């Protein structure tokens, strides 16, 4: 069975309708892989559709009804003659179509860097992968060497916590934004602030750089995401539409170029040509504190306190939830090119997920450095380095922890215990 990538949701074959059934059939077609597959086997047609996840049960050619309910209605039509009906099993068991997770080696903490005097709130990597910078609640930005973990520079200039950092890929600039409404552009050759972007009315919580255009995007407590022209320091747009603080933002080279998540639990896609919203996704119940874009696929994940959801990108269709719930406020999320996603929570829990299947393969808990209280274990920022082999987390006990995959682990020593989800009800 070959499945092609989707182009649009409207192309789902309405096979249910081909038999003259009720309008609810398109959703049935999505929800039921079983009967469709059997039908396809008979017809020999390859589907060009989204594969649906859970093996919700076979009601197939019957009178529709509510998807997802397993009933004892057994299809009476002859096309299902290839299946056996066992009298003991009222419910047919069809193997779930949910993709099996890849095996990933577990991650372990191999280095702890302490040096900051306050919570470490943000991190950004240099495009050459030799150093990274962290912004902290002690109003300084420290630049560290990746290989050794030693401090290279400390930059001062902010008056309050530094909540967002970004290093430009096309110029030798670093951008920082903080709770003091200041957005600064640092020249890395002179280690000085050369530009300031004035206009935010309250603290700035997130910062992102556009990959192709010289644009800086900042979102903050005034519920507006501001788009700045880097060179002229002018504010090009104020993307207004959210009702509450904008706490996460990322950018893409194509439409939608800006995606923001906010404390009003919505995610908005923006059209940068007009400064208007393209889509609003209201799938979350609590504030969306972290967004992460997959480096190669056209999809992204959004994290909120009740769930982590995956969406596909040009149109923002909801794909699925992650298969476990971390049950804490998730502050940071990062994705690897190998398909490892990591989420860091407010209680110090660091969970590692397989991107494709949504399976959580490791649940780590940070250990606070001696001298800190046990409750000071929040993770505020996490980032993979550019190769994706090292993870760096920034925490509330004022340390920076570096993680790498355990080399000695094998699929035999750390088996994957995966159970495909039976009944997805967590909307």
């Amino acid at each position, binding site marked *: 069975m070959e499945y092609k990538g989707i182009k649009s949701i409207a192309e789902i074959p309405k096979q249910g309708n081909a038999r003259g059934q009720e309008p609810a059939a398109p959703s049935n077609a999505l929800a039921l892989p079983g009967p469709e597959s059997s039908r396809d086997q008979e017809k020999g047609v390859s589907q060009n559709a*989204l*594969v649906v996840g859970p093996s919700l049960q076979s009601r197939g050619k019957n009178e529709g009804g509510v998807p997802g309910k397993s009933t004892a209605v057994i299809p009476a039509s002859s096309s299902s003659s290839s299946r056996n009906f066992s009298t003991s099993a009222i419910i047919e068991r069809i193997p779930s179509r949910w993709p099996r997770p890849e095996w990933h080696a577990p991650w372990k903490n191999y280095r702890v860097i302490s040096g900051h005097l306050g919570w470490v709130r943000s991190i950004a990597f240099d495009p050459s992968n030799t150093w990274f910078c962290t912004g902290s609640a002690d109003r300084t930005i420290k630049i560290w060497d990746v290989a050794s973990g030693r401090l290279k520079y400390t930059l001062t200039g902010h008056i309050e916590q530094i909540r967002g950092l970004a290093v430009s890929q096309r110029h030798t600039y670093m951008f920082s934004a903080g709770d003091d409404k200041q957005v600064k552009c640092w020249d890395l050759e002179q280690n000085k602030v050369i530009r300031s972007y004035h*206009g935010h009315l309250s603290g700035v919580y997130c910062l992102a750089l556009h990959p192709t*255009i010289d644009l800086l995007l900042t979102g903050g407590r005034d519920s507006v995401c501001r788009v700045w022209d880097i060179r002229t320091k002018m504010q*090009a747009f104020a993307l*207004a539409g959210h009702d509450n603080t904008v706490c996460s933002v990322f950018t893409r080279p194509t439409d939608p170029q800006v995606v923001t998540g906010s404390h009003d639990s919505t995610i908005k896609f923006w059209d940068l040509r007009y400064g208007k919203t393209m889509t609003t*996704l209201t*799938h979350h119940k609590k504030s969306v504190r972290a967004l992460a874009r997959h480096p190669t696929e056209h999809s992204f994940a959004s994290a909120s306190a009740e769930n982590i959801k995956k969406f596909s990108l040009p149109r923002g269709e*909801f794909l*699925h939830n992650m298969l476990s719930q971390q049950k804490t406020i998730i502050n940071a999320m990062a994705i690897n090119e190998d398909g490892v996603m990591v989420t860091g929570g407010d209680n110090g829990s660091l969970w590692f997920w397989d991107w494709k299947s949504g399976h959580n393969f490791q649940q780590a808990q940070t250990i606070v450095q001696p001298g800190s209280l046990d409750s000071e274990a929040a993770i505020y920022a996490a980032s993979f380095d550019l190769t994706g082999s090292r993870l760096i987390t920034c925490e509330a006990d004022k340390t920076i922890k570096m993680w790498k995959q355990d080399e000695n682990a094998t699929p035999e020593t750390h088996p994957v215990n995966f159970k495909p989800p039976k009944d997805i009800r967590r909307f």
Partner: protein
Amino acid sequence: MVVPLYLQREGFMPRKVDDFGDGGAFPEIHIAQYPLDMGKNRSAKPGLKILPVSVDAHGNVAYDAIVRQDENSNKIVYSQHKDIIPKILKNEEGEDDMDEDEELQKEIEQTTQETKAALEKVVKVRLSAAQPKNVPQHNSESKYIKYKPSQQSAAFNSGANERIIRMVEMPVDPLEPPKFKHKRVPRASGSPPVPVMHSPPRPVTVKDQQDWKILPCISNWKNPKGYTIPLDKRLATDGRGLQDVQINDNFAKLSEALYVAEQKAREAVAMRSKVQKEMMMKEKERKEQELRALAQKARSLRTGTAVAPPPSSMATPMDDMDTGGDYDTVRERQNDAPPKESREDREGRLKRDKVRDEWRRKRERERRLEAKDAAMGKKSKIARDRDRDISEKIALGGADVGNGKGGGEVMYDQRLFNQEKGLDSGFATDDQCQEPVGPNNSSCWERFNRGSYTTTLTRPLKRKPLTRA
């Protein structure tokens, strides 16, 4: 248009003014009717419309047309159940990759160009607004305005009816940068609401609600409106009920140790005093024995030898009349013991007896005289003072106050001293008087004087009133 007759109007829907003919609304047709356009709400916005029920391409009723109105028509809006159902996206890695990549690149470039162009336009407008090229010419000619105020009298404007005002434009520095960085922009109306794609939030359990209950803040320092707040609310945020107060065992141990030590001390003191008393008794006894021995010796010396000084230890007859008798008897006994008595002894004895008799007679005489006087009514000063009541003594001023408060003959009622209440005590605040008055206690004063005089008076009755915290 002919209006159908009565009872023949089945299915007739009058919607236009002509449908009514020259009459009014039809009561048997149950729709909203506006004959002559009367009663229509014309003040409503012209954009208000009722969306008709529409059907999409496949014949399904489009219930989300209301969400895709106006601005949302060119946006992506998710409103179907299928937008909630989980799906898996599967990418195929195949020969299409190269093409896709190229296409992607082209798309990226195109998007970049378009966006850049749009942004540059916007930024240029803003930049040029900040740097004006054309300086607006302001005319320096002054305008004159004749102003006639509405209030005209001799008091305003010193009686003049109108004023002439000259208006000149203030000169502006053309190269001065804009003074204000923040421009007030009216908030653009938000985009129309979008369907919510999640289940309503779970209802809060009682336990959760109680866990997150936050008590109102009542300051210990400020109370600007002067509210009267009960004490338990004032202390509610202290956290007093949250901790279990655990008293250390050492308190109990300390009090026990003190008790034991006190007992021991008492025992020790009692023992010591007993021992001391015994010692003193022994000493006394010893001394007495010595004295007796001495006396004996002296007497024996006196009787035994002729020359012996009369021991001065012979008691004079002047002291202690009452025990004189005793002494006599003792002496008699002692006289019996020695067989011989010297002449000096006997003479002394007789002399002493004589003196004693004289004194006795004198006393009797005095008593007889006193008795005679008393029978008559004449009292001597001493007798009079002895027989006086204490109140008479106080009245005469002869009472012995002693050392001020209590002691001496005069004893003051302690309740009179050290009173802080004064008039604040009000009337009848005496707790003792709150007992029911019965046959046996008819008045406070009697009850008060029932018991021992000293115990009730000398116990200080200090009762401090409750002070407000």
